[in-house]
């Protein structure tokens, strides 16, 4: 390609930053392999969903305003999370309906923001990856990515090109895992029922590994599967696509 490589601002997400840096490095590698230059603006924190979904519009707005500022000037903004990408894309503009200046900036950001895997396939035209991951995996469709951004076939298309990997779909892959941000601690009984059903569905496939594109859901499902003593390993889809699976899986340690 002779064109100048697009400059991508990586929106790491607060959960990846804190819990699973490997996902951030996997995202950076996949983006670079797709011909992008990757930068990580230092003033990013969280997309603001905890405030926004708790009805705290004021804090959601100030956090959104910071994010908009932090990512000004990039050709694209990419997040390894459907839910955070949907927050920037679908919800930021609506936060500034009474501030035309900010609304315009937020709309500009929204139009350039993508979830990682769909960015690779739909914007960069990636059709395959160079990675090896022997074993069977099952894939959970996280809600925001699926319903707000239409992410369904993209991760499956790329996973199909991973050497040694077979996909075993679980029943109700499109049904919520019960995470829902603060929902899981506010309504633990309901959340537990939901994640238990998800864990049943995952375990009954016999797949070695559960993958998804959102760390919130993954922490929830990993927490449940590990509590039950399930054999399933849990990873973010980017780790597998980037071939960065040396780290212990989510909720596991080097000592096992």
């Amino acid at each position: 390609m002779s064109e100048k490589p697009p400059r991508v601002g990586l929106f790491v997400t607060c959960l990846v930053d804190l819990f699973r840096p490997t996902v951030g490095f996997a995202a950076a590698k996949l983006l670079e392999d797709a011909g992008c230059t990757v930068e990580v603006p230092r003033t990013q924190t969280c997309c603001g969903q905890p405030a926004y979904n708790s009805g705290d519009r004021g804090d959601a707005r100030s956090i959104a305003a910071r994010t908009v500022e932090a990512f000004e000037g990039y050709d694209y903004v990419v997040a390894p999370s459907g839910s955070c990408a949907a927050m920037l894309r679908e919800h930021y503009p609506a936060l500034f309906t009474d501030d035309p200046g900010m609304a315009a900036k937020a709309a500009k950001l929204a139009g350039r923001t993508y979830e990682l895997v769909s960015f690779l396939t739909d914007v960069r035209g990636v059709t395959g990856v160079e990675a090896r991951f022997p074993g069977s995996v099952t894939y959970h469709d996280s809600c925001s990515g699926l319903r707000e951004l239409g992410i369904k076939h993209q991760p499956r298309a790329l996973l199909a090109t991973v050497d040694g990997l077979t996909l075993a779909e679980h029943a109700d892959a499109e049904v919520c895992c019960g995470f829902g941000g603060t929902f899981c601690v506010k309504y633990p009984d309901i959340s537990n029922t939901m994640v238990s059903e998800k864990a049943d569905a995952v375990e009954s496939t016999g797949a070695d590994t559960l993958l998804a594109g959102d760390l919130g859901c993954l922490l929830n499902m990993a927490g449940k599967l590990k509590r039950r003593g399930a054999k399933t390993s849990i990873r973010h889809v980017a780790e597998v696509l980037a071939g960065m699976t040396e780290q212990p899986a989510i909720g596991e340690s080097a000592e096992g």
Partner: protein
Amino acid sequence: MESSARAFKENARAAVADPQLKRALSHVKEGFIGKRAKAAAKLPEFEVLRDAARDIKNHTLDHLDLYLEHYERKVTETGGQVHWCPTAEDARRAVLEICRAVGARTVTKGKSMIAEEIALNDHLEANGITPVETDLGEYIIQLRGETPSHIIAPAVHLTKDLVEADFRAHHTAFPPERPLSEPRQLVNEAREVLRGKYLAADVGITGANFLVAETGTSVIVTNEGNGDLTQVLPRVHIVVASLEKVVPTLEDVSTILRVLARSATGQECSTYTTFSTGPRRAEDPDGPDQYHVVLLDNGRSSMLGGEFQDMLRCIRCGACMNHCPVYHAIGGHAYGWVYPGPMGAVLTPNLIGIEEAGHLPSASTFCGRCESVCPMRIPLPKMMRHWREREFERHLSPAGARAGLALWAFFAKRPSLYHFVTGMAAPLLAALGRGRFRRLPLAGGWTAHRDMPAPEGRTFRQLWAGRRQGESR
């Protein structure tokens, strides 16, 4: 109806621990979801019809006063009478007065959520009039002294064996050793019991799926035909309906009908779709002598022009609750008032107040499955968020949660401080965790049911800074 929505959490805890309920609720998933998906897929213009249905209702709501006045004029012209009722109390009184004027002793009832909303049965009973539910599901829960747990399948929380036991206990005139384990046998027995009641009733009360402004017609859709007998056989027919049921024309009804049954049960069309216009005319072979419409507002008109107006498009198909994982987990009674599931989470606070019903819009993961199947394209999650915003503004959300949120937001707005703190916390948690925690202070809601995966080690930000130089800012 009395509300127990404040006790939502306790209700939900009891519900998830009830194995009988769990078995009954599995039918919601198995019964409705696949059928709706098939019906939608079979009709190429289904998505276009959803848009059309939404537009019809939006147009009507924008001119609701006009269409309601026209509707009333037409009802009057055809010999019927409209009773405008601002409150539930007014509606109860209107129904009772009509019943008293004809000396009614028993009334038969078709399925009506508005009758539930105004707690009509209790009121009639308290005044010496016996209401008899004729919809099978409603009949069953009336025997049990329960309320509906679903807006189109009121007894969906019950399993067949429970119903069999109820019938054996109540229908003592039948031989005790009769076979009754098949659904068909239950239906036939209920039919037999009800047959006599239709003929004895002085008044028949039904709901309405639509009120047609063009003609003054009320429309009901059922699968049992009980609504027809209820409204045709007694001398008096009372329609109880809320005012947003009005649509401009018969043509509009047929458009919306095409998405209604498909979304509800996956049928192309319900078994019976019945149009009633006024009382019996001289040339009619049958029909009631009197035709009344008790038109309920009960807070709906105050939703017009505000952020909840879209909710008035709802046609009560039940698709949102059929697809709701929270509803699947807890069933309808846990919501604590007439309307369960996502539509209830938005509507109920409008009707009984957010102070009472605050849990309902909070208890959602915003998974969005409801909105994706709602035939009227009602943005349910967005409106639940509106409720949360109102609660937050009015300081109704719990103090602990607010404090936690404020602390988090304080850091999230200060990137340097935020990264300083997370940079300290991540390695510490990683060192303590050995992959995960079974218990963690301040995270009891999480660790009661699942482990908390530990961070890998240092934060991404620390590691990235170590490996790369020359970032832009």
